[in-house]
């Protein structure tokens, strides 16, 4: 029977671990609400998407630093509480619950749609407003949460801008490839719809595995289909390799990628030669935005890095939250929700934010970019 006393002991140990851990945590949480406003950040800071996640976090920290040095908001300083969602739905819910337990006032973040979806449900249940800076699957607004605000353009808009570009260039036969991630599949589905509505034809609709490296036989297949344009909706790691092999195989037509691949890394992976003429549908980064020079320079001098694809959006998201806090003049969640909803022509870097009745952007800001000489340029 000694065994059972050991079990009991083990359990008591585990439980005391819980209790001590949570009591210390809640304690610090209460302190934070004294002269600080705690804002939750939900981003992938580990794992495959950590690069973009950290770029976003950097921009948010920059925004918070500026706000706090300007005297903060509601006479309090902003403090960030970062939780890692790892782009994994299960990790994301735990991370979201962690943020809720810390009594954050609001959330900024959300990179992968796949993990943002379940997390947004947690925040909705806790009535905490969430400003989503990057994730833009059309499934997000479909949930109808009044706590969820999307400041990136939506997938259908992006798909439309890609399809329109193809139409303008007279490209009719389009091959669409996605990487089976929630977001890429969504974008691919809408792209197919848009292409066909524009009178074009989807001659191939293919999926790849995101970790894939060899697209030899897929490119052989594309080559035999002779597309006028190929649209890859997945992320840059696979996008770069695919582009390289696309050019190696000499597949006809132009190669376009979605904003998941909008990163200088895609040029580096494919090589600047192969990346020439690569098209990207995306919301332009700060570099292309008139008036964003200051942001870009500050970012570069602070982190010794160029801003990532979603840095500007994250910066805007944080500033929008502060703006709404000021207008609400309270950290009360219902008031904050209302203030966010009533945002009128908030001027961020490269975008003017106003929400539709579904809490999505009234005005999409997607453009087509083109790589020339190893650099992204604004095409349309």
């Amino acid at each position, binding site marked *: 029977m000694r065994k059972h006393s050991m079990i009991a002991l083990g359990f008591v140990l585990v439980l005391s671990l819980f209790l001590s851990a949570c009591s210390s945590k809640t304690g610090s949480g209460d302190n934070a609400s004294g002269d600080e406003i705690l804002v939750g950040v939900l981003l992938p800071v580990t794992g495959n998407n950590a690069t973009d996640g950290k770029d976003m976090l950097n921009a948010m920290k920059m925004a918070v630093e500026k706000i706090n040095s300007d005297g903060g908001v509601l006479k309090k300083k902003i403090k960030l509480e970062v939780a890692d969602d790892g782009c994994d739905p299960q990790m994301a819910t735990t991370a979201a619950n962690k943020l809720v337990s810390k009594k954050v006032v609001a959330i900024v973040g959300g990179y992968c749609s796949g993990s943002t979806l379940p997390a947004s449900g947690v925040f909705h249940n806790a009535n905490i407003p969430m400003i989503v800076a990057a994730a833009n699957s059309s499934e997000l607004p479909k949930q109808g949460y009044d706590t969820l605000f999307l400041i990136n353009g939506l997938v259908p808009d992006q798909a439309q801008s890609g399809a329109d570009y193809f139409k303008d260039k007279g490209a009719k036969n389009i091959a669409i490839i996605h990487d089976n991630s929630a977001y890429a599949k969504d974008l691919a589905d809408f792209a197919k719809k848009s292409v066909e509505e524009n009178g074009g034809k989807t001659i191939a609709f293919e999926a790849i595995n995101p*970790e894939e*490296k060899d697209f*030899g*036989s*897929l490119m052989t297949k594309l080559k035999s289909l002779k597309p006028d344009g190929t649209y890859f909706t997945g992320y840059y790691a696979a996008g*770069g390799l695919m582009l390289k092999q696309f050019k190696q195989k000499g597949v006809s037509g132009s190669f376009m990628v979605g904003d998941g691949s909008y990163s200088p890394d895609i040029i580096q992976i494919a090589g600047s030669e192969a990346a020439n003429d690569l098209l990207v549908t995306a919301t332009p980064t700060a570099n292309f935005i008139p008036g964003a020079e200051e942001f870009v320079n500050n970012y570069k001098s602070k982190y010794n890095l160029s801003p990532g694809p979603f840095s500007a959006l994250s910066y805007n998201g944080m500033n929008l939250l502060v703006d709404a806090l000021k207008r609400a003049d309270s950290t009360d969640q219902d008031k904050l929700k209302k203030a966010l909803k009533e945002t009128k022509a908030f001027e961020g870097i490269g975008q003017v934010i106003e929400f539709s009745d579904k809490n999505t952007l009234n005005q999409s800001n997607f453009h087509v970019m083109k790589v020339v000489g190893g650099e992204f340029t604004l095409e349309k």
Partner: protein
Amino acid sequence: MDVFLQIFFDGLVMGAFYSLIALGYTMVYGIIKLLNFAHGDFYMLGAFIGYALLSFITGDGGLNAGLLGIGAVFIITMIIVGLAGIGVERIAYRPLLTAPRLSILITAIGVSLSLEYASMIGWGASYKVYPIKLSKNGLEIIGAQISFAQIGLIVLSALLMLGLRLFIEKTIYGKAMRAIALDQSACSLMGINVYRIISLTFFIGAFLAAGAGIMSGVYYGTINFMMGFIIGLKAFTAAVLGGIGNITGAMIGGLVLGLVESYGTYYLGGSWKDVLAFGILILFLVFKPTGILGAKEMERM
């Protein structure tokens, strides 16, 4: 026809990678009946160490390394990873050689996790880009294109495999390996240093996997810390396909798997590729567990 041939070449390139990695699997399994889950991670380690060395000797990531330089990096990397293979065997597997199968399998999973995340901490989670650019030139054979890089890749892996074959068949060490595969305790009674031969086996397995790793880095251009996982599983499939424990079988199995995946991608679509690979694996394990080249086992009820 040209498309058919083109897919054949595409499959051959993938198959060459599978074969090289499958060799290590099959050798280790043949000798100590250990399913070395961490084997694919030696491939990853090879890619990363090759990357680090290239960056180190040239200062610019190997952009201006001559052919000789690249060759040297190739060999040094393979030796370093080979030694890492010995290290892993000494630390993690040797204490467990007589332990139940389950323990050693779990250990292998632990080693795999450790290698992966140690690399992630060392080199970061994002994709690293090999800066060596390969020429796009190549030959055209009946309408199908095959680049010199692809030819080089296939030739190089064929040479490595040929070397291994000769080593196993002609040298005293190779003989000792084959003997241990048959009866370990008899070998130690005959005065063969079994542990040393096991170490050697791990060295060679990791050595070849590392070679495949650098080749993949140079050929595809990107590496990351998880790159060894899926390819490790595929290589295992290749080893089973050819008859596990059988060196020639591993080579053939790799090529067959590469071809099957290549044609599968073309006709069924890329997302079904892994289902195809695992489906084949299951079918073989169930209906012909001894593989293409394996002998028939006695029927037991």
